[in-house]
């Protein structure tokens, strides 16, 4: 949790007390909160049968009492522990307190705990009277029975590795199709319930289509299934659906909720980002049924695998889905910290089902997770840089190369024809000659000098082979590079230094700067420049730059800005990223640099603006100038000037340079510019890149979780309570990823199985989907959860071996899943025991996708950049900046909903209204609300009206094709089947036709009928 720091209004002690109150969950509201968030369970939730109800189970019965009343002051948190007594461990409870102990096994009445909670003396009674209600009689009785029976502590169920449970005996084994059903039926029978009949085949095929593909079957597919006399027709259907590429699209959406996927950066400006290649990766991985362990490892640490492939690097986009604050003037490292907090929380939720958030600020009150554990876990993930990676699809590469070839050919053709040929354009040839003559005068002999030593306030500097310097790692709004340069052996004094700003593929938008937010990506801003020899400053003159228009008064380009003592003026390169430009600064007067000298560069902006790659050269030539032509070409040209030999290649290169830059060539450039405009943009996706060992990022514990309160550095490790041998435990991100999906992590199998269960039944076996900690709700079917865990990890031939498709297959083939929908029995109003198939509304995306597929409008293209289905302009108008919504046309209007452009500050309204997330938090479980705004959306949103028209057109077409005279009744029947899949009942048809006739004046009465059907409860809920 973010316990941000107001400036000392409350003493730390007061804060802690408040914190305790929140976390203690012991107040009236919290009691109500439990009623709200959890429930009263009339059913036996132990899963162990009636016989065991009176046995005191530590985890089920005792720990919640201790956690609620005692752990706040006598729990894992040393900082708030009172009287040096801890009751969350057995050893602590047995500690000698001076002749007595809190818990004396077998002797409740001799246990201080019981004496204290039952005392009449307010000063003695625990918990203390100030705001803490005393224990209830039932609670005290439970504690007594537990202590009398030995007072044994047990590890919380989810922290223990699952053992394969034996299949329970059931009275009606004939109903069971597999082990899942045995566990489910057993729990029903324990509670006097029996399963429902199998759903009718039409309901079943619609259900399994929506669950496995997120779309609806066509009437033909339904008929084929219903009419099939194959005994394994359903199995065959399931296998066909699992093999469909739409399967990956369906489950990618759920995974993207966890990954907090979005196409924008969030916060104020919320600018676009490119990370859809990561979404493609998820779809592909799910379709390929990449085993969940590999699926996890690649997303968390694909870059660290041996010979990591491009695909494995793209997968690391998982943790690049964090938000990026681009507001002017922020502290970028603060928001990097918040992103790390998000990564720790998300990792905890997805792979451990544990809430780690509490421990950001203090040791967890209930779960054995210390404040230091939290930062140790953060340290495991903290050592990465966050670059972009080229993820051009093959088609884009091919297209770019083809255009590039045409450009080269065209350029060569033009220079050959116009400039180089004897019968070329004489005027232009003269201009070219003049151009050459002018530049020839300006050529100087530049010598690259690589720094001997480099220091910086934050970025890490490294010398590349060509003598240039590359910056990486973190940066701030005010960075200083201090370069120590070697002595230069020269006959003549040095007249000038040259600084070249260069691009590099590792830099944001290829550089040359480090700016990655707020300003143009790849921007830099050199504010001040100082040169000295030893302690003696070197006087520098205002120089020249290859940046056009760099006149005095231009605060961003004029070289004189570097010496004006004003950080808000400087030298930079306006325009597109990825350019190379030069700055030449004369020494005034020229000096011999025959001893070490130094350069200090200040970069100051309201965003990160240090140079990402640059090169320093010196010259002894007189009147050196900054030139626009590249350094290489300058060097070759100079060499030819000395030798008097101009090679044809050099001549051609100079001609090309003239063609590309000279005003006189503007007309000839037009066809090239046209081609250049057709070059597709690079697809640069966001990835993780582990830092080298030599440049490890130091992770610090943050007092109260506050960024501004860094404390001691913390070594990377998984939480201590997982009892991994510290010598053996994970030390970096890759090892963490491997550990998370190993047997050492008892939670991952259950958490994964639980998530899968929720996909099909709406509620998990553990209802608190994101939380398996000691405060979580008990599983409705603990043994089933353990069974699925063991199955998931079982890599034998019969096992699931982390195959999510096999897990899904086992669930949808169960008799439990095939039951018909129904009203839950009064003994189990929440339907936790699944004696009927659960009723629930589908999520926003499936509602739209079902309509798109039913109406035949759906575009089946898989993957690619996001698209813009229609929505009112006013939605994005609410967002910052003049955001446009470039509504897609053609097939892109009807792509699967997971491809809809997701803008965090103006999420697609039709989805948020139906509880879709905006990508700000890892969402393990969506809410399912019912609101009038949903009604207004389905009724009146243009997007749905368009689909309604699609339905109407299709139904009329169907009726014509079926050979009938397209009577209203036929059309209505077809329409009904397209929207709701099943056949209408006659009464329903009558009602529909009465409505149809009442609207006969309307231009599109069938559209109105389709619209009405799309608004029925059945259209958007489970069949």
């Amino acid at each position, binding site marked *: 949790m973010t316990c941000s720091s107001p400036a000392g209004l409350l003493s730390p002690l007061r804060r802690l007390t408040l914190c305790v109150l929140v976390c203690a969950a012991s*107040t009236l*509201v919290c009691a109500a909160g439990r009623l709200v968030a959890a429930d*009263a369970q009339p059913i036996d939730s132990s899963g162990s049968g009636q016989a065991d109800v009176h046995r005191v189970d530590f985890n089920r019965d005792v720990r919640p009492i201790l956690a609620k009343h005692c752990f706040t002051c006598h729990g894992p948190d040393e900082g708030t522990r009172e009287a040096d007594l801890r009751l969350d461990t057995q050893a602590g409870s047995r500690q000698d307190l001076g002749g007595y102990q809190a818990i004396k096994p077998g002797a409740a009445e001799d246990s201080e705990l019981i004496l204290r909670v039952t005392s009449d003396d307010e000063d003695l009674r625990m918990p203390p009277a100030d705001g803490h209600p005393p224990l209830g009689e039932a609670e005290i009785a439970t504690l007594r029975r537990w202590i009398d029976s030995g007072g044994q502590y047990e590890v919380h169920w989810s922290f223990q590795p699952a053992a394969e449970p034996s299949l329970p005996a059931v009275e009606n084994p004939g109903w069971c199709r597999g082990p899942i059903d045995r566990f489910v039926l057993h729990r029903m029978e324990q509670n006097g319930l029996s399963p429902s009949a199998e759903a009718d085949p039409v309901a079943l095929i619609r259900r399994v289509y929506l669950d496995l593909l997120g779309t609806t079957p066509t009437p033909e597919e339904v008929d084929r299934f219903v009419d099939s006399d194959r005994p394994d027709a359903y199995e065959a259907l399931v296998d066909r659906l699992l093999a469909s590429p739409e399967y990956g699209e369906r489950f990618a959406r759920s995974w993207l909720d966890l990954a907090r996927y979005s196409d924008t950066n969030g916060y104020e400006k919320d600018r676009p980002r490119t990370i859809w290649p990561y979404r493609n990766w998820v779809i592909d991985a799910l379709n390929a049924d990449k085993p969940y362990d590999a699926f996890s490892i690649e997303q968390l640490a694909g870059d660290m695998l041996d010979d990591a492939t491009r695909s494995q690097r793209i997968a690391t986009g998982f943790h690049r889905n964090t938000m990026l604050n681009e507001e002017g003037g922020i502290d970028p490292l603060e928001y990097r910290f918040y992103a790390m907090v998000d990564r720790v929380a998300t990792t905890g939720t997805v792979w451990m089902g544990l809430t780690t*958030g509490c421990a950001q600020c203090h040791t967890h009150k209930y779960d054995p997770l210390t404040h230091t554990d939290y930062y140790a876990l953060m340290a495991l993930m903290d050592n990465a840089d966050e670059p972009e990676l080229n993820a051009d699809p093959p088609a884009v590469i091919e297209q770019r190369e083809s255009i590039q070839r045409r450009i080269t050919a065209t350029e060569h053709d033009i220079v050959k024809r116009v400039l180089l040929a004897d019968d070329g354009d004489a005027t232009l040839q003269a201009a070219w000659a003049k151009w050459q003559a002018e530049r020839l005068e300006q050529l100087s002999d530049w010598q690259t000098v690589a720094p001997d030593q480099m220091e910086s306030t934050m970025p890490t500097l490294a010398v590349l082979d060509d003598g240039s310097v590359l910056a990486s790692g973190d940066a701030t709004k005010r960075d200083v590079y201090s370069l120590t340069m070697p002595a230069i052996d020269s006959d003549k004094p040095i007249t000038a230094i040259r600084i070249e700003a260069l691009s590099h593929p590792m830099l944001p938008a290829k550089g040359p700067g480090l700016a990655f937010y707020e300003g143009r990506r790849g921007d830099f801003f050199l504010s001040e420049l100082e040169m000295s020899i030893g302690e003696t400053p070197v006087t520098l003159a205002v120089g020249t730059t290859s940046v056009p228009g760099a006149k005095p008064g231009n605060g961003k380009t004029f070289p004189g800005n570097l010496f004006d003592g004003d950080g808000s*003026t400087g030298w930079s390169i306006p325009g597109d990223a990825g350019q190379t430009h030069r700055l030449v600064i004369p020494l005034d007067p020229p000096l011999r640099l025959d001893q070490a000298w130094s350069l200090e560069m200040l970069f100051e902006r309201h965003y990160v603006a240090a140079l990402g790659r640059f090169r320093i050269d010196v010259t002894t030539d007189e009147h050196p100038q900054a030139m626009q032509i590249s350094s290489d070409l300058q060097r070759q040209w100079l060499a030819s000037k000395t030798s008097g030999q101009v090679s044809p290649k050099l001549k051609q290169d100079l001609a090309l340079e003239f063609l590309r830059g000279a005003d006189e060539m503007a007309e000839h450039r037009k066809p090239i510019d046209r081609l250049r405009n057709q070059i597709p943009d690079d697809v640069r996706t966001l990835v993780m890149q582990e830092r080298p060992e030599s440049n490890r990022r130091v992770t610090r514990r943050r007092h109260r979780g506050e960024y501004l309160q860094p404390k001691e550095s913390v070594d990377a490790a998984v939480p201590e309570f997982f009892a991994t041998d510290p010598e053996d435990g994970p030390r970096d991100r890759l090892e963490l990823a491997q550990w998370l999906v190993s047997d050492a992590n008892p939670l991952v199998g259950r958490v994964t199985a639980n998530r899968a269960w929720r996909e099909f039944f709406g509620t998990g076996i553990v209802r608190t989907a994101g939380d398996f900690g000691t405060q979580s709700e008990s599983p409705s079917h603990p043994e089933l959860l353990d069974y699925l865990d063991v199955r998931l990890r079982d890599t034998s031939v019969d096992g699931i071996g982390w195959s999510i498709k096999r897990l899904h297959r086992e669930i949808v083939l169960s008799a439990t899943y095939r039951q018909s929908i129904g009203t839950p029995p009064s003994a189990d109003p929440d339907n936790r025991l699944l004696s009927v198939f659960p009723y629930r509304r589908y999520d926003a995306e499936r509602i739209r996708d079902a309509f798109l597929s039913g109406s035949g409008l759906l575009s089946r293209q898989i993957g690619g950049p996001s698209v813009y289905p229609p929505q009112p302009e006013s939605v994005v108008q609410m967002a910052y900046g003049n955001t446009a919504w470039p509504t897609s046309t053609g097939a892109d209007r009807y792509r699967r909903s997971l491809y809809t452009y997701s803008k*965090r500050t103006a999420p697609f309204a039709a989805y948020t209204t139906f509880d879709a997330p905006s990508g700000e938090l890892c969402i393990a479980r969506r809410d399912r*609300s*019912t609101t009038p705004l949903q009604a207004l959306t389905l009724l*009146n949103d243009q997007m749905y009206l368009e689909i309604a028209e699609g339905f109407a057109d299709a139904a009329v077409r169907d009726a014509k094709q079926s050979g009938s005279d397209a009577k209203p009744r036929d059309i209505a029947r077809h329409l009904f089947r397209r929207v709701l899949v099943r056949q209408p009942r006659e009464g329903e048809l009558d009602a529909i036709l009465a409505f149809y006739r009442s609207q006969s004046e309307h231009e599109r009465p069938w559209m*109105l009928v389709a619209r009405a059907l799309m608004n029925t409860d059945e259209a958007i809920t489970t069949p």
Partner: protein
Amino acid sequence: MNLKELTRRQLFGACGIGLGKISLASLLSRDVSAADSPTPASASAGLHHPAKIKRVIYLFMAGAPSQLDLFDHKPKLVELEGKPIPPSVIAGQRYAFIQPGAAVLSPRFKFNRFGQSGAQIAEPLPHLGEIADDVAFIRSVHTDQFNHAPAQIFVNTGSPIPGRPAMGSWLTYGLGSDADDLPGFVVLKSGGNLSGGAAMWSNGFLPGEHQGVAFRTSGDPILHVANPAGISRQTQRATLDLVSDLNRRRMESLAVDGIRSRIESYEMAYRMQTRAPELMDFSGESDETLAMYGTKREDTGSFAKNCLLARRLAERGVRFIQLYHSGWDHHSNVEGGLKSQCKATDQGCAALVKDLKQRGMLDETLVVWGGEFGRTPMVEASAALGRSLGRDHHPQAFTMWMAGGGVRAGQTIGKTDDLGFHPVEDAVHVHDIQATILHQLGIDHERLTFTFAGRPFRLTDVHGTVIKKLVG
């Protein structure tokens, strides 16, 4: 049905609910009554203690108005003009744009005293002066955040990071709404870009019906509230009748609450379609009223209309009405910027308070005015950004005012040092403001919690104290 066996979802389902109508309070009261409480509570009785007010109108001045030029008069700044602030005062504070050595800028306006309380208010706010005795000023508010989006989100959700429930969502979650056919939490927007964006009216992890409904600045105020072209009111009614008929048929074989609440939600949507145009239609307002708000003046623009709309929403039982007016981020020419923003907002704010008072609604309404942080005593100037005579962000001290229900008006709470840099008396943190707003509605901010991903959350995180001087 035994209420104790109900989950929240079921109860909501059974009641046919949306838009935050049903509250935790009524849920709690049913629970309490089931547990032998003789008097079932109601929303107006508050959740934890009797409520002083029924609703909140929050006038959020986004961008951060300069307290030093409007409310917190510091003659010392005139004296120090052009000189840097002592480093001991700055003490490592991070700035968004300026360097810590920037020079002091004197107040840009003359200050006058108003009302019996003698409140000091600068020249650009004459209308506020007229209601000075109905208002309590807090000059010592401070926050943790020094950038707009996080600071705005912080004021609204208690956290600087998007994703937590907004104050209005907490309120409708805790209290429900008295509005029958309108959302319980409405957001109105005017002025320029709004940094914090949709995160400020997000329900976060609270149930979806508690999301704030942002009235659109163009088209339908509520998305899709008007029938699309070609759909008449009769067609809409006939459609709903068919939908309802088909839904009822389904319910015959499937007796789940979800279908019943879906039927209800469609009826409520239909009623909302009727109520929304009537809400937006000002033709019934008297000329006097319109003139008081200045809705017809060009320079008050949409803010004045939003103030009047706020009153109309208040009359219709909306629990939390939030007006955002952007345009206060005066990094350059703070003088000119304040003049135009005050002109756009001053009259509307004052009219709202007067109007509520005239109608006897001020006592049951809390009106809150404020931005997300203050502005520096130092000048901002930058050649690269073309800025001069502006002020940068200043989280250490800023001014807010409140009026209405339970507020001890006619006083000024808190004091800052001679530079207006730090509070020196009665410092009030943003979490304290939140705690106080909840308190006035009968909510103990430490006890309104919601468990998400395994831990209980609340609006004020682990902080906040009710400002006793203000409402005690």
